C-alpha cells in the first residue's frame, strides 16, 4: 500500500500552494483576529466567513513529540524511528508534523523549531516538516 498523501480541497488549496512556494500560509479571522489551523471554511472561534490568508514564518515551539520505534502503520516502516511532532506556531495554532535533522535523544518539548519544505517525489505536494532553529 502506498504512503497516504494529502489531497488538497478547495478550502485548503492555498495552504498547499504556499508550501510549494516555500511559504507557510494560514488563515486569520478578519472579525475576531483568531489564527486558524487546519484551514477551514469558517472561523473556529467565532464561525465568521471572513477569513484571510496570511504569510507567517512558520516557526514555533515543540509542544510535544514521540519517537515511534514500531511503525504507526506499515506504510511508514521506512521512516522508523518516526519522529512525530506537534508544533505550536508562534501565532498560536498547533499542527502535526515530523522532525528532521535531529537525533531522537536530542528532541525536547519546548525547543524552537522552523519549517522544512519537502517536495514529495512524483507527487504534486509539499510536506511541512520541522527542524531545530
Amino acid at each position, binding site marked *: *500500500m502506498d*504512503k*497516504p*498523501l*494529502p*489531497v*488538497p*480541497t478547495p478550502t*485548503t488549496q492555498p495552504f498547499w500552494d504556499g508550501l510549494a512556494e516555500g511559504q507557510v500560509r494560514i488563515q486569520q479571522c478578519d472579525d475576531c483576529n483568531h489564527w486558524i489551523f*487546519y484551514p477551514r471554511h469558517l472561523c473556529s472561534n467565532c464561525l465568521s466567513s471572513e477569513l484571510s490568508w496570511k504569510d507567517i514564518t512558520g516557526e514555533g515551539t515543540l*509542544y*510535544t*513529540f*514521540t*519517537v*515511534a*520505534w*514500531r*511503525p*504507526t*502503520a*506499515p*506504510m*511508514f516502516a521506512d*521512516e522508523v524511528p*518516526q519522529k*512525530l511532532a*506537534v508544533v505550536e506556531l508562534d501565532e498560536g495554532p*498547533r*499542527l*502535526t*508534523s*515530523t522532525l528532521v535533522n535531529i537525533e*531522537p535523544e536530542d528532541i*525536547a*518539548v*519546548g525547543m524552537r523549531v522552523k519549517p522544512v519544505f519537502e517536495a514529495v517525489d512524483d507527487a504534486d505536494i509539499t*510536506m511541512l516538516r520541522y527542524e531545530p532553529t
Partner: protein
Amino acid sequence: MGLRGDAAIVGVAEIKPERKPVGEQLFSIERWAELARTALNDAGLTARDIDGVSVAGIRETSMFAPSTVAEYIGAEVNLADYVDLGGATGTGMIWRAAAAIEAGMADVVVCAIPSTPIPQPPNPPSMAGRFFGASSAAFGSPQAEFDIPYGNLAQNCGYAMVANRYAAEFGYDEAALAKIAVDQRTNACANPNAAFFGQPITVEDVLNSPVIADPLHLLEIVMPVSGGGAVVVASKEIAKRTKNRPVWITGAGERLASKTPTYMPDLVRTPIKYAADRAFDGAGITRSDIDMVSIYDCYTITVLLSFEDAGFCGKGEGIDFVREHDLTYKGDFPSNTHGGQLSYGQAGLAGGMSHCTESANQIMGKAGPHQMDKCDTVFVSGNGGILSEQVALVLQGD
C-alpha cells in the same frame, strides 16, 4: 441538575474476552441479540419487556443500525439510539438511556456492543483501510489531509505524545506508570474471565517490554480481544421487580472538544474534569464517597490523567498518588477491579462497556473471585479516541 437517579442498570451481559477467538462466528446483529437475551435473563426480564435499544458496533450496516437491530430481534421500541463516542460509547449509552427513561420515553432499554469476528463473504473486501484505526482517511477529512500523511494515525503515537507532554510539565516516573498495569494485572489474576488471567507481571516486566512509541511500553498498551458487553437500563417501577440489586445511575457528565490530540485545547488537562464534576454534582456525593473507580485504561497514561482530572488527586500529583495507593480489588483505592482493559482485554468499541458491566457486577455483588467486600458507589469513566470523547458516570446501590 442532571439525572434524578430514577433509572438503574438491572441486568448485565459480557462476552468472555479472547485473544484468539475460537468457535462459532456470528454476525454482529446476532451477537447483539445474544447479548440482549443474556442481559435480560440476568435481570429476570424477557424479550417482550424491551422498549428501547441503544446500538453500536453493528458491522452489517453503516446506516440505520437501530432499526436493523429492532427488526432483527422483533422489538417495537420507543427509543432507538445510536451512539458514536468511541471508547466512551458504553458510558454514553447508559446516561442517554437513563435520561430517556426519566423523561418517560422508555422503560427498558438494552444497551449492547458486540465486538467479535464476523463471518467473511466468499470474496472479502480489501482490508487496506484497517491501518488507519479511528482516524478517517476519507477525502476532506482533516485527519486525512493534515495528520495521517505525517504518520500520526491510530492511537499509540497520540498517547505517547500525551505522556511526553505530561513529563515536560509535571515530571514522569515510568515505574509508577508501570505499577498501574501491574496492579490491574493482579486484579485480572482474580478474574477468570480476563484475557490475562493467570499471568501476573512485575514492574520490571513492564519496563523490559519493548518501547512502542516513546515512552510507552508494550505492557502499558491495551491488548485487542474479541468480546462484547451489554446492560439493561430500566425505570424504577421495572427495577423493583428484577432479580438483581438495582444499580442506580445517579450522576453523569460528558465533554469533548477535539478528534485529533494536536488540536486539543490542552493535551494534559483532559475533558473528564468537566464530565466528572457534573457527575459528582448531579449525584450529590464527593470523591471520598467512592468505593471503586473504573477508569478507561487504553494506556497507563490515560489512567494517570483521569485520576488527576476526575479529581481523585491534585493536578500533577498522579504519580505520587499511584505510588501511595494499592489499586487492587483488595487495596485502599480499588481501580479497574476486572483487570481493566489492559489486562481484561479491549474488545474494540465494547472495551469501554467492560468498565460499566464490571461496576454493575460489583454493586450487584456478583463480580466473582475479585468481588469487593463492600461496593455501593462507583465512579466510571469512558474515553474515546485520544482523550477526545469523555463521559463520567456515578453508579450507586441502595
